[in-house]
């Protein structure tokens, strides 16, 4: 899937390309246009920051683990298997 990026990107295109940018999947040329746009566009700079923050928030989600009983049960099973 090749995507022609015109010389100057619009903000709507920036929004479409943001994940490719963050994933380092843009060609050097496209990346240059993307970064140039970021320099002069406050809205897009805020957008990219928000995407990064969103990723950070996802990575900060905590999950509960198994209950203590469930873990004890697994340990019993492990002891049984290793006999």
């Amino acid at each position, binding site marked *: 899937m090749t995507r022609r990026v015109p010389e100057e990107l*619009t903000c*709507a295109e920036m929004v479409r390309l943001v994940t490719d940018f963050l994933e380092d999947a843009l060609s050097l040329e496209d990346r240059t246009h993307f970064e140039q746009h970021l320099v002069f566009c406050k809205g897009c700079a805020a957008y990219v*920051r928000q*995407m990064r923050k969103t990723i950070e*928030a996802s990575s900060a989600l905590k*999950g509960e683990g198994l209950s203590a009983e469930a873990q004890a049960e697994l*340990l019993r*099973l492990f002891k049984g298997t290793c006999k």
Partner: protein
Amino acid sequence: MDDLRAAAASAEDARILDALRAGDEKAFLALVQSLNGPMLRVASLYVSSRGVAEEAVQEAWVGVLSGLPRFEGRSSLRRWIFGILANCAKSRGVREARSTPFSDMGPRDDEDEPAVDPSRFLPPDHPRWPGHWSAPPTAWAEEQVLNKESLAVVEAAIAQLPMNQREVITLRDVLGWNSAEVCESLGLSEGNQRVLLHRARSKVRGVLEKHFGAGGGR
């Protein structure tokens, strides 16, 4: 660099495997404790209740223990364990779906939904700034993004995503797997994975933006 990391990971795997095969209980418990949160989260992708997810994790560990003598280390230990887990959880999910009249696996993938409402951009025929923001996002009060309330919003937003987007964002962003690992375990191409990740992240960002007040921060 990736080769180095892979070599280090497989040395670590070998150490853990030796310990498990030698019946080292501490090593086993350490492994369970490091993986059981992520495993419960992955199992929860495919089944509807916490209880069933726990059963799937338990069943996966039983499979891991019985498969241990035959595990050859061709894939990483973690990938092998999560492979077993996904099978256990998916087959429970299928059974659940059969026994409930409505499958509760979330909305279908909505390919056409834009990442940002098109009305926030100037129209393509705008004389001076076609396609530029008419209602640009404004900076968030960033210390709020990681507070408990916002994280609950993120958790709920992810739960609302279509299944394939939820899988990708959970493995990539919540659990921090790299794209190669996610592509392999979900059977996706790099490009496809990126598309799903893009939709998922865009929607979660949109929900957070709404949470912080329309248009951005306060």
